[in-house]
């Protein structure tokens, strides 16, 4: 595929006019033709469910697929904090432009201007739509919608539903989808996993799925294919992603010619519950909102840190003067509320210096004692108490903190068995989100005509670092308000295309490829479990392509992955048969794809000789240890074509006409 030209297809004109001009002049598909046109949507998270529902409402014949037992299980459901929208309900100076600017800057200037501006533009419509669906957003006493603030911005634009915003938004989209299923506009295929993409004459025309209950392969055809299959954070084995989250649908498309963009841009979230042992299967996020009141610290002396690790001392035993509130020290302007990438790296620096506080050495404290005292004193004041005792202040302070973060504290206690009101929480960064994904143009179409990618599965909006509460915004923007329009650009040329038949030889060929691949995997009958390979891959990724990277490590890591992949195909053991319900086989196909993706991530990280956002190269940092971008040489999107011996890099140069590229500083 030499000489792929990556055309962003951004409409001409002023940034602010692009989207409305596009909508006004784009090609439409008439209702009588929509009835005939079939669309496949893979994935039913926020992006997939909202897209399938909206396309169904428009009159397209939609087939939706999920590997879950129900569309409502998608991992969007686990998002806690909230969803951004430029509503300016708080009258604090928010605007579409400000949301656009914050997102571009937060992403360290590695995203496409026009896409991000459109995202900011439609954000307000999302809130309206969700309210109308019955999403119970938090409200003020006057009955109007409430907002809170999130890291890296100076306005309050985050809408939320307790700590379960993702759940409520997903249920809203799921209900809209259910309505279309009941009218017959959408045919829903639960427990069906996409295992390959079928192209006819270069266009995406269908998919091969495996019915997970019977193990049978099925062919599904349509005029186009929309992937909304989420991110690939599970390549690290331990992440905040759900156990089933995977890259396979996207990766199979890459192997059919799509390009993987910026794969090394992964977000490491600073506040997760630390790893406690080798048996651990996943990590749990503690919402970013905790950093509004919690203070992050480690003991200044390594002796104190060692005493805590060995259980001889507790956090509270360390005197105030012996603590290093390192975020407040290093970043006085933003303090504990620096963006995620910055906070994560600082925690790593503290622990690498031998000051970590968990038995593994990998944890820092998130302390609410000051907040409890501050709120307690305020409460005493408002109750007109003179000379309240320390115990009274603490009791009242705890009450306030419970009101704000009760459910998170409870979750922490359930998992760790420790009471965070009494002792400071222990936290450590963990893989959370992947900004990288399938390369798409302005229409969210990949370089394969007829193949679209939405939500976390594409790369387009978050650059090298995503701001809090923007993932939900992007998923729903793509599904409700972008793809229903932009898909018409492709489909308007397809109105004369008769329904695609699964009898086409291309389907038989791809189906056979899939069958062979599954047979090959199950026939290995080696000695090691799929899980053990996944765990080893995760360790390599975390060690060499995690929070900080360097050229030597990346080369070594890449080599190790190649060896591990070879070992996998020789020695993996998968019990059972292909043609039956077989969760181990499902896991194996996912891990096989991660073993290839991991290598491309290493290549990407090695190619990018700069530090930006979530990608921190140790060779490229300022004297104070801060990330150093190289705008002259690396203001491009890396789009990778798969190749067994050497993945091939294609570039889309990024143009910034509406913002000035600056060094991010939070000092």
């Amino acid at each position, binding site marked *: 595929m030499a000489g792929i030209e990556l055309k962003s297809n951004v409409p001409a004109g002023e940034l602010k006019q692009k989207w409305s001009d596009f909508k006004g002049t784009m090609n439409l598909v008439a209702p009588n033709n929509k009835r005939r046109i079939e669309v496949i949507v893979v994935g039913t998270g926020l992006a997939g469910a909202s897209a399938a*529902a909206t396309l169904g409402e428009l009159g397209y014949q939609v087939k939706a697929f999920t590997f*879950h037992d129900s569309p409502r299980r998608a991992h969007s459901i686990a998002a806690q904090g909230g969803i951004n929208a430029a509503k300016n309900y708080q009258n604090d100076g928010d605007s579409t432009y400000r949301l656009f600017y914050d997102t571009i800057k937060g992403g360290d200037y590695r995203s496409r201007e026009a896409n991000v501006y459109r995202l900011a533009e439609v954000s307000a419509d999302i809130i309206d739509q969700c309210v109308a669906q019955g999403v119970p957003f938090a409200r003020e006493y006057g*009955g109007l919608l409430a907002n809170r603030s999130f890291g890296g911005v100076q306005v309050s634009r985050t809408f939320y539903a307790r700590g379960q915003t993702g759940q409520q938004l997903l249920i809203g989209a799921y209900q809209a989808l259910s309505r279309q299923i009941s009218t017959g506009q959408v045919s829903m295929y639960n427990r069906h996993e996409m295992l390959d993409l079928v192209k006819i004459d270069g266009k995406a025309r269908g998919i091969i799925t495996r019915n997970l209950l019977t193990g049978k392969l099925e062919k599904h055809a349509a005029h186009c294919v929309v992937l909304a299959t989420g991110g690939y954070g599970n390549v690290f084995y331990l992440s905040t992603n759900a156990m089933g989250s995977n890259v396979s649908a996207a990766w199979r498309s890459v192997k059919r010619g799509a390009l993987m963009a910026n794969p090394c841009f992964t977000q490491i979230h600073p506040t997760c519950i630390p790893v406690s042992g080798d048996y651990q299967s996943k990590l749990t996020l503690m919402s970013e909102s905790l950093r509004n009141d919690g203070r992050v610290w480690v003991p200044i002396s390594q002796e104190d840190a060692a005493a805590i690790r060995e259980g001889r001392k507790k956090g509270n035993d360390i005197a105030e003067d012996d603590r290093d509130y390192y975020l407040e020290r290093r970043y006085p302007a933003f303090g504990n509320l620096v963006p995620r990438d910055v906070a994560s790296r600082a925690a790593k620096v503290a622990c690498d210096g031998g000051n970590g506080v968990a038995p593994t050495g990998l944890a820092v404290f998130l302390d609410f004692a000051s907040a409890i005292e501050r709120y307690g004193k305020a409460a005493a004041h408002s109750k007109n108490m003179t000379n309240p005792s320390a115990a009274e202040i603490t009791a009242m302070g705890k009450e306030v903190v419970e009101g704000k973060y009760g459910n998170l504290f409870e979750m922490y206690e*359930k998992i760790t068995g420790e009471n965070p009101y009494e002792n400071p929480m222990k936290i450590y960064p963990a893989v959370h989100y992947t900004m990288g994904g399938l390369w798409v143009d302005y229409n969210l179409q990949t370089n394969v005509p007829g193949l679209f990618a939405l939500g976390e599965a594409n790369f387009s909006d978050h650059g090298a670092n995503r701001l809090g509460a923007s993932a939900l915004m992007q998923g729903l923007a793509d599904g409700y308000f972008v793809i229903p329009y932009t898909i018409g650009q492709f489909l308007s040329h397809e109105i004369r295309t008769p329904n695609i038949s699964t009898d086409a030889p291309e389907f038989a060929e791809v189906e056979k490829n899939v069958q062979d691949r599954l047979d090959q995997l199950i026939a290995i009958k080696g000695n090691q479990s799929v899980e053990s390979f996944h765990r080893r891959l995760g360790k390599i990724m975390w060690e060499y392509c995690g929070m900080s990277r360097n050229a030597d490590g990346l080369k070594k890591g890449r080599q190790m992955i190649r060896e591990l992949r070879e070992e996998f195909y020789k020695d993996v053991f998968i019990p059972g048969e292909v043609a039956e319900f077989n969760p181990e086989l499902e896991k194996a196909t996912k891990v096989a794809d991660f073993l290839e993706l991991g290598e491309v991530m290493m290549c990407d990280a090695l190619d990018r000789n700069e530090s930006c956002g979530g990608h921190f190269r140790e060779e490229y940092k300022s004297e104070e240890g801060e990330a150093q971008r190289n705008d002259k040489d690396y203001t491009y999107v890396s789009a990778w074509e798969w190749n067994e011996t050497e993945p091939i890099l294609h570039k889309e140069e990024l143009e910034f006409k509406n913002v000035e590229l600056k060094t991010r500083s939070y000092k």
Partner: protein
Amino acid sequence: MKLTLKIWRQKGADKKGQLESYNVEASEHMSFLEMMDVLNEELISKKEEPVAFEHDCREGICGTCNLVINGRPHGPQQGTTTCQLHMRHFKDGDTITVEPWRAKAFPVIKDLVVDRSSFDRIIQAGGYVSVNTGQAPDGNAIPIEKDTALSAFDAAACIGCGACVAACPNGSAMLFTSAKVAHLGKLPQGQVEHAARSKSMVDQMDTEGFGNCSNTGACEVECPKEISINNIAMLNRSYLSSIFGSNK
């Protein structure tokens, strides 16, 4: 800690199943599902078939995990899903019985995996607000009292895991159905279709073969999101009014 597990093994939907015993060595810091992972790793290392069970987010929100532990859906802890249950709540030497959700409308697929698609069909019968994308007025056009929004949220917190059905001696899905009816019915946006929604969702529930509510309250006790049976009363009210109040 050393544990004896008695686990329901069943090869397939139409096969007979039975409890089988396994010994497993666990740590008290593990979650219950991580303990099951350890068991499965051991089985795989012996080239035996691992126990099939469902799980996904492992943080208590997706509603996928569903084990009946010692006779109780999601185990002994209040307000906790199986994935959030930790082994520190068990003692060394314990024998733990692990069974699948039981209800006619949740047939067993394999081992501990059951088919809950009946829940989807109940939602499809009317568990939504009929509004197309793009038709919505401004989000602040209709103020909603804070307490109303909160109580709608309480009902909307349902994760669709099916513990209510599993706990109910009648295999009834009234708590699940009523949670959706109450979530939408309490909000002005959902009021328009409230009575019709109650009727069609209850009818679908009956069609699926769920039992009738006899108000034992077991669902409320086992619900990991602690959803109240007050919602069932609300559903009963709107169901009755859809029958007696309708002039259709």
